[in-house]
């Protein structure tokens, strides 16, 4: 299987399209009223240009390409990894660099890994764990099933798709499976599916990491290994177990399968007949079809945090690759229709009793929780501190609950709430849905 993963050299033209204007530094909307807020977690924390947004990353990329900056310098290596790759800066940029910003950042990291210097030490453990255990959490395979214990106890076991056919594969993801706090997410998802009678199964101990974390920290080889394995598994499940839909509650897995797996030369062939959905998309369909009916009231004041991976990372950019429309490599337009902005909000608002309030920074201008791009592993303290800033923003709305659709955000924001001793509690949207459904 061939993979079309760009090198920094391939992207040189694009990071030279950055004008260094700094528009990327803050979220801005003319309105009226005008709206301006910080959008870059690294810039907010570290302040110096270079750390700041896509302008700074273009400087780093130029420095690498002209030989001024090398990964022998541990401070520089660290700076390249001190970015959540959240895409907040990308949302502001107006020039041809825009569609390629996260790619440039990750390409620098791939250079760092290729040089032997990257990723950061804690991230190296993560990648080694993937090699050893097929997950980044150093968890033995059998532990992957721990989250299913309540189902066994309740004598409502979850189907193992390796042995029993099902139309829906619930791809759990490593964070939901191994992270004690985030286990609430797959548990709520599975309970909802059972309540609704969805014919679904899981891969159980044989589930392999989606590869998102490896890709985010620049280890393209490890990503390719697990992604190739998963594409082959998906194809087999479709052919032999009747899987037509892959559903995941993990924003990272969803982003990887939707946006990273398509870099495979055989993606279309391997995924023929299979639809990939985030749980929210799947449940929203059922809501519209009248099959998802809420009965219980949740008298909660709720705000919603848009994860980067289910939001602006799903932007589809139109680039004039052959120069027939504008000029070669011109950024033409952006299509936000695949970003999951409205669906979670519509579901939240449909839950009886819920009072919904918005934070200032939402949708494309959502402020990253601070956990993405390998930061939660590489710079745990900063990730928690940044999450505290987001929690503070949530508190300013008067909400008691912050809801999201990503186990990474769920975990990191929970840490952030603890850090600032906030009373706000984190919930995955599946937890609200589960609670609002009849038993």
């Amino acid at each position, binding site marked *: 299987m061939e993979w079309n993963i760009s090198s920094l050299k391939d992207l*040189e*033209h694009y990071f*030279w*399209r*950055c*004008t*260094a*204007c*700094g*528009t990327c*530094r*803050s979220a*801005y909307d*003319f*309105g*009226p*009223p*005008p*709206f*301006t807020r910080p959008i870059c977690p690294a810039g907010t924390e*570290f*302040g*110096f*240009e*270079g750390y700041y947004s896509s302008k*700074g990353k273009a*400087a*780093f990329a*130029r*420095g690498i390409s*002209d*030989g*001024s*900056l090398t990964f022998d*310098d541990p*401070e*520089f290596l660290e*700076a390249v990894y001190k970015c959540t790759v959240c895409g907040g800066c990308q949302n*502001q*940029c*107006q*020039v*041809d660099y825009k569609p390629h910003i996260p790619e440039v950042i990750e390409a620098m990291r791939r250079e760092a890994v290729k040089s032997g210097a990257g990723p950061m030490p804690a991230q190296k453990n993560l990648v080694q764990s993937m090699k050893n255990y097929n997950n980044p959490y150093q968890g033995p395979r059998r532990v992957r099933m721990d989250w299913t214990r309540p189902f066994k106890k309740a004598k409502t076991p979850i189907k193992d798709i390796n042995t029993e056919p099902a139309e829906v594969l619930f791809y759990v993801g490593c964070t939901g499976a191994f992270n004690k706090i985030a286990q609430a997410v797959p548990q709520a998802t599975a309970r909802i599916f059972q309540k609704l009678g969805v014919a679904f199964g899981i891969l159980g101990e044989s589930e392999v990491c989606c590869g998102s974390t490896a890709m985010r920290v620049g280890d393209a080889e490890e990503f390719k290994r697990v992604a190739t394995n998963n594409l082959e598994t998906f194809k087999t499940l479709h052919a032999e177990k009747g899987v037509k839909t892959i559903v995941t509650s993990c924003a990272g897995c969803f982003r990887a399968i939707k946006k990273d797996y398509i870099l495979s030369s055989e993606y279309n062939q391997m995924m023929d007949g299979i639809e990939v959905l985030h749980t929210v998309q799947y449940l929203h369909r059922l809501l519209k079809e009248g099959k998802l009916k809420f009965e219980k009231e949740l008298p909660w004041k709720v705000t919603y945090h848009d994860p980067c991976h289910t939001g602006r990372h799903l932007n589809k950019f139109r680039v004039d690759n052959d120069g027939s429309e*504008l*000029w070669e490599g*011109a*950024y033409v337009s952006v299509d936000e229709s695949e970003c999951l902005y409205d669906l979670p909000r519509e579901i939240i608002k449909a839950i009886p009793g819920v009072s919904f309030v918005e934070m200032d920074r939402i949708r494309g201008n959502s402020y990253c929780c601070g956990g993405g791009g390998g930061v939660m592993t590489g710079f745990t303290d900063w990730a928690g501190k940044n999450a505290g800033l987001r929690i503070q923003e949530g508190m300013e709305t008067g909400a008691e609950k912050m809801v999201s659709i990503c186990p990474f955000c769920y975990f990191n924001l929970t840490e952030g709430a603890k850090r600032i001793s906030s009373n706000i509690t984190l919930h995955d949207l599946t937890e609200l849905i589960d609670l609002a459904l009849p038993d």
Partner: protein
Amino acid sequence: MTEIPKESKVDPRITKKLREIMGEKNATAAKHIRYAYSYDMSFVKPKLPDYVVMAETVEQIQELMRFANLEKIPVIPYTAGTNIGGLCIPERGGILLDLKKMNKIIKIDPESHYAVIEPGVSHGQLAEALYAHKLRFGWPVGPPSASVSSCAINHGIGGLNARYGLNSQEITSMEVVLPTGELVRVGSCAIVEDAWHSTLPLPKLDGLFKGWLGGTGIVTKLGIGVHPIPPFLKVFTVSCDNVEDMYSYMLNLSNYEICDDLTAVSWWLAQVPIPYPYREKPDEAPEWFSFANTNSFTQKEKEAREEIWEMVVDEEKKKGTSLKVTQYPEEALRARTQLPSQIVGSTKNYCKMAGAGISWPGTFTPANKWAPVYTEWKKLLIGHNLSPSVRMSMYRGVHYGMLRAMIPFNKQSADETENARRAIVECLKIDLDHGGIPYKPPVDFGQEINKRAHPGYLMLLRRVKQMLDPNDIMNPGKLAL
């Protein structure tokens, strides 16, 4: 490929001291950080600072300046780095002082109509805060993240030029740290601590810090006049086939002083983005477009302004000019009436097609010289395969104003950058010889200004600089003295 900045000497003793003054996290000599400050969007060649520091308090800046003055180390003030004159690129290394953490809006006085801000306050930030009081400022066509203070003290242009004057004319008071570390105040705040309403009737000492390109001190607080937002906007848009006819219209309309912004742009600048390299204008397209923003408090006032404008249009048509009432290209109009804007800001409309680079001969030029200068610029720029993307804006109550050509170029290519630089410097010489003066000038421009300057002016300039900055540490070299 564009030039790689040359390595500089870093002294660990200096780094240590800077960390003591600014705080451990606010001072660095790391190469990758210095590299990120070594260039901007202009043709000015990249140069590395030796150290970068971030200030959080006035006291830190004072201590830094005392130390730098003692050690005779250059200090380059920096807010957002969005100027297009290379003003924050160090000519002689030194300490780059990043002020963007000092971003508090200290006060908005909605009754007296002024605001007091720190240097890191951005246009976007202030626009939001002022809007809550239904107030506004002269937002430039720069990025929303650009600094209000830096724009104002460097005689930046804003969208209310024709009504209230340049942004530097809006300055009401200042607090400044001198290159020797003393804290000074000019304007009413010098007499009463909390009074920031006016630089008059005291001696206009604010002139010591305006237009000096960061060469005389660090402005740590700035008072600026702010104005109510009239609810009725009307934009008058016309086109002409030639610059002479457009000048005639602007001259006529400006006599009535009804516009907040009276601007004309050549066809090339009306495109989003500016064509790069030069592309011929379609024969049927007019060569000049004008937008004139008027804001009125009542419908009747708006109608009165419309009446005046219609009278001017009739008069111009009777003269037999090519003036037509026309539609301004939609996105370009939005970019110039919805400020601050991400569409402009030296990005999408300016550089998108060329890639990374933008510079200008940006000048204050007598209006009666606009047409002859434009005609020469056009020929010269086309000769360099560059679009003559020129703007003319009339200032408040006078017949002079901004004449500038926004020249994008491909910064990845050293040859294309040099081609643009040469053309721009040649354009500047033409304008200087017609009585124009460049604002926010890169050193290449400073040299041309000084060649033509009265010896007494240069002597005075040197003497004032020497008085305020005896060791020539404040952004040295930028005045090309």
